[in-house]
């Protein structure tokens, strides 16, 4: 049980896919303009991550080594299709907002990376814990970045306008703002960690 917990918690903390491993930046930069999109993207990726990790861990002993990447992609694409259809059916607005980035979860480095680095070498339960942890880490990172970008960049929170005494800085809603916020957050977090370790 303790091992499962450790596999779970490392995805949020010490091996956070965005802040420490720095993977999956493309969707992070694109959908972190507001928190609604961030939550949608984070949950979708978490679902795919948990399911694909579980299936890959189940079949890991039967997959020939030479064609393992195509096999992973097929499994991941299956779950992405499920997510996409569910989104189209029940949350069409969110689907439109996320756009191309839902099908692009197939080639998300975090998911393929966990399949290759973890699920292909570990049994099912730790793989599920790992996928859940990485997914939650991705979600947390998206929430933090999108919180900064949405409040400062458009003066809103979850789509609601804040009663604001300042003028929102448009740049934070644009692509350069995403890079700025992410870079500053990564730098700040690593600085804090270096302070603690020294």
């Amino acid at each position, binding site marked *: 049980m303790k091992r499962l917990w450790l596999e779970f918690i490392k995805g949020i903390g010490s091996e956070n896919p965005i802040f420490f491993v720095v993977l999956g930046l493309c969707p992070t930069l694109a959908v972190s303009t507001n928190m609604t999109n961030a939550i949608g993207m984070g949950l979708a990726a978490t679902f795919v991550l948990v399911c694909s990790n579980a299936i890959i861990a189940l079949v890991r002993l039967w997959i020939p080594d030479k064609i393992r990447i195509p096999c992973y992609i097929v499994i991941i694409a299956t779950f992405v299709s499920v997510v996409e259809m569910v989104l189209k059916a029940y949350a069409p607005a969110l689907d439109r907002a996320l756009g191309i980035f839902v099908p692009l979860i197939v080639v998300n480095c975090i998911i393929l990376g966990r399949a290759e680095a973890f699920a292909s070498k570990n049994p099912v339960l730790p793989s599920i814990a790992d996928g859940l942890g990485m997914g939650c880490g991705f979600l947390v990172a998206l929430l933090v970045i999108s919180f900064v970008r949405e409040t400062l960049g458009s003066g809103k929170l979850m789509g609601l306008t804040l009663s604001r005494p300042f*003028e929102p*800085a*448009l740049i*934070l809603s644009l692509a*350069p703002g995403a890079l700025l916020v992410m870079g500053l957050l990564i730098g700040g977090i690593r600085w804090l960690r270096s302070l603690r370790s020294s």
Partner: protein
Amino acid sequence: MADKYFVSAAPHFRKDESVGKIMGTVNAALAPAALISVYIFGWCSLGVLLVAILSAVITEALIQRCRRQPVTVSDGSAFMTGMLLAFNLPANAPLWLPAVGGVFAIAIGKQAFGGLGRNIFNPALAGRAFLMAAWPQRMTAFMRPFSVDAVTQATPLMLLKEGKASGLADMGLDYFDLFMGFRGGSLGEVCGLALVLGGVYLLWRRIISWHTPVSFILAAGAFGWIFGSPDGFFKGDFLFQILSGGLLLGAIFMATDYVTSPITNKGQLVFGTCCGLLTGVIRRWGGYPEGVCYAILIMNAAVPLIDRFVKPRRYGVTRQERNSGLARRAP
């Protein structure tokens, strides 16, 4: 006896130049343009200048204190960054604008790269580009000269871009107005006379060389002359392109920044010419009316490349020897 015999490493030729002295000279060269902006736009311009300078200096001191480095604000480089940033803002900008810009220019544009001498991009221009992307309406609401109630006025380049005027006569201006600063524009860019005075002073004191500014200005002017008019080639207004916008300010004070410009004279000619051409391209076909800021920032990124390719000849080596030496070393 012993203390009269010095043994030291090269260079033995010494000059009493220092970062502080050079920055002081540049700041003095900027002073006429700052003073004239107060005359043209009134006291609000002084406020913008002071807030930008204070913000830049305080940010530099705070970050250097946090990074446990010696605090070097007394060398005047942060002061200069603040002043140049203010030169890029509308004179009646709300005071939080220069404050935020100063923090960004120093913290992200300069200290994030490691401080003075290590920044890739001109900090003042980085701050200006950030403000332009963040609050575009604030950054383009330029004040009409000599107006007490802060009436805004489009710059000549904006009028040209929007197609509201095709030449100086349509704008009710002449070259004298452009050169003296009686036109809409940012705080420090309007008065060409003050900028040229500052530039001549810097040239005289040998702080800058003529290569960057002259090639920059000529290239931008020539580009405007050739492509600047919708009627056809070679019908653009050479002098208008040079005197309007921030070309003089950018060419004399921004593109000549030691840290972010090439080392050799030849490299500076390449740098200035490319800056000028990019300025022309942005003015003519870009989304913004003025392109000096972005042209310099883009070329800042290319400076290491220029320095790599344009190397001075080694002392005592002929051109042929150098070329053959290179050929021998090539794999």
